[in-house]
């Protein structure tokens, strides 16, 4: 019996665990370590219309139980992602979620339209929550009208279901979620990183060359759990949960909060085998909790 399979709009997943966008590149590095077909899905790195180098270095800084990153959406650009990265990924039996980013509305539309046509892209993840770019990114994700408008336009052009990736840097996450649901989003993915900063006291300047960065890792887990708990009760579309997951127990906590699948980000840097390890460990935790199928736990803390 498969105790872990999950069906979500566009995504038929063997198990609910995927690497989070930006923490797994386009899979090539991890493919040297294990068979990517073991994953429930893969959220590939944000793709923009043009080739981007991203921000100057240093781009990462450590914090207590967390890290800040300000990569700045470095990626080869739409054309190369489709021609090289996605084609390379075709050899794996795993649905791909394409993370779509841009500076302007037209950018999002262009990327969404084209990348959603790729054979193995089963869903889009609309990244309106990247805190590390001057234009676009989070600016789209902190205002419900703007998010709603963008979601509608992307839905019109996408061949596959659209998940909107929410920013936690808002006063009212429920309002944002509802706006996206009403605009036609097929699912939500949350949370992206919290905007943070660390200062090098010797140099008297931020550690990150970009100044600000996005906080991820176990430190943010309680914020993610809280937001998913709130949002899952207010919307009826599924949530891909993320933020600090590093163990099978964490996955269960996200499910009980209201997630229907999860993404693992920062933990891949600590242990590159973390995704398959979690997948292998989940049945043990389900046994302990006397649960047959993981889907029984969705929203279990409030249902």
């Amino acid at each position, binding site marked *: 019996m498969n105790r872990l399979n999950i069906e979500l709009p566009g995504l038929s997943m063997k198990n609910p665990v995927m690497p989070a966008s*930006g923490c797994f590149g386009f899979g090539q590095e991890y493919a040297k370590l294990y068979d990517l077909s073991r994953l429930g899905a893969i959220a590939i790195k944000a793709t923009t219309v043009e080739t981007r180098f991203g921000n100057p270095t240093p781009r990462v800084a*450590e914090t207590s139980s967390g890290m800040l990153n300000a990569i700045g959406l470095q990626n080869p650009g739409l054309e190369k992602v489709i021609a090289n990265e996605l084609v390379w990924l075709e050899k794996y039996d795993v649905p791909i979620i394409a993370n779509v980013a841009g500076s302007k509305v037209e950018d999002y539309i262009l990327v969404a339209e084209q990348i959603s046509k790729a054979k193995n892209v089963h869903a889009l993840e609309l990244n309106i929550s990247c805190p590390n770019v001057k234009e676009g990114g989070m600016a789209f994700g902190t205002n419900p009208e703007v998010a709603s408008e963008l979601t509608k336009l992307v839905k019109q052009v996408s061949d596959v279901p659209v998940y909107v990736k929410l920013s936690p840097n808002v006063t009212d996450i429920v309002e944002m979620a509802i706006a996206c649901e009403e605009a036609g989003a097929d699912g939500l993915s949350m949370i992206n990183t919290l905007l943070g900063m660390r200062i090098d006291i010797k140099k008297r300047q931020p550690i990150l060359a970009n100044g600000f960065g996005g906080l991820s890792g176990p430190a943010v887990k309680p914020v993610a759990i809280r937001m998913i708990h709130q949002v899952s009760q207010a919307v009826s579309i599924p949530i891909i949960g993320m933020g600090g997951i590093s163990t099978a127990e964490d996955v269960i906590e996200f499910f009980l909060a209201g997630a229907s699948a999860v993404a693992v980000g920062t933990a891949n*840097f600590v242990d590159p085998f973390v995704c398959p390890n979690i997948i292998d460990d989940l049945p043990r935790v389900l046994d302990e909790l006397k649960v047959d199928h993981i889907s029984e736990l969705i929203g279990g803390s409030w249902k």
Partner: protein
Amino acid sequence: MIVENMEIISQRNIASKVYELVLKGPELVHLASQGQFLHLKVSEGTDPLLRRPISIAQINQEKDELTVIYRAEGKGTSMLALKQAGEEVSVLGPLGNGFSIKETKPGNVAILVGGGIGVPPLYELSLQLVKVGVKVVHVLGFAGNDDVFYEEKFTELGETYVATMDGTYGDKGTVIDVIEEKGLTFDTIYACGPTPMLKAIENSFPEKKGFLSLEERMGCGIGACFACVCNVKNDPTKTAYKKICTDGPVFAIGEVEL
């Protein structure tokens, strides 16, 4: 590249805040070569969260042992320094492309230039160069007398000059000063150390064949997170890049922007 729990065989304080750590394990050692690095997890919990990149200083294939040398500076390395023989450390590695010894012909002269905590990876490099018959000259720069380490070990392998910035040991000045003052000549230069030192080497010996080992703050260490990129020289679009963790940490002089 694998993740292995390696046992601490010994940990010694060899200079001010500098530790020599010998790790043992059956697998990783046999994949490693000079100039590559390891990504070490210094604690069980989530603080510190990230692994620490540390160069391989010596590889002992027979004994399944690796040596690393590091400075206990911040939180992570200070915690590592507290570990004792018998304890285990989770090691991800070997990572990156190290120094190629093929670039110097047997009989030729290679100068190995290290600055502070950039010295360690040169030790295994020197061992390997000597093994294939290259004549090695070492120029090691440190802040002061208390910071000097491994001078005798390098001396056993070849001519060794030590410089300190404050002149409390060896010659006073930079490694470049030493090379110029002593009129050292060489066919190839290998260097590891602070970026200003690497820049000075690039500028001082533009016509020489040389290899520089770079540092950058890292996330994954395996090429997936794009934390450690640098620009490529002479790229007008400024979009080409190299990842220090996988394309480096060693680059040919002139390959990337320092």
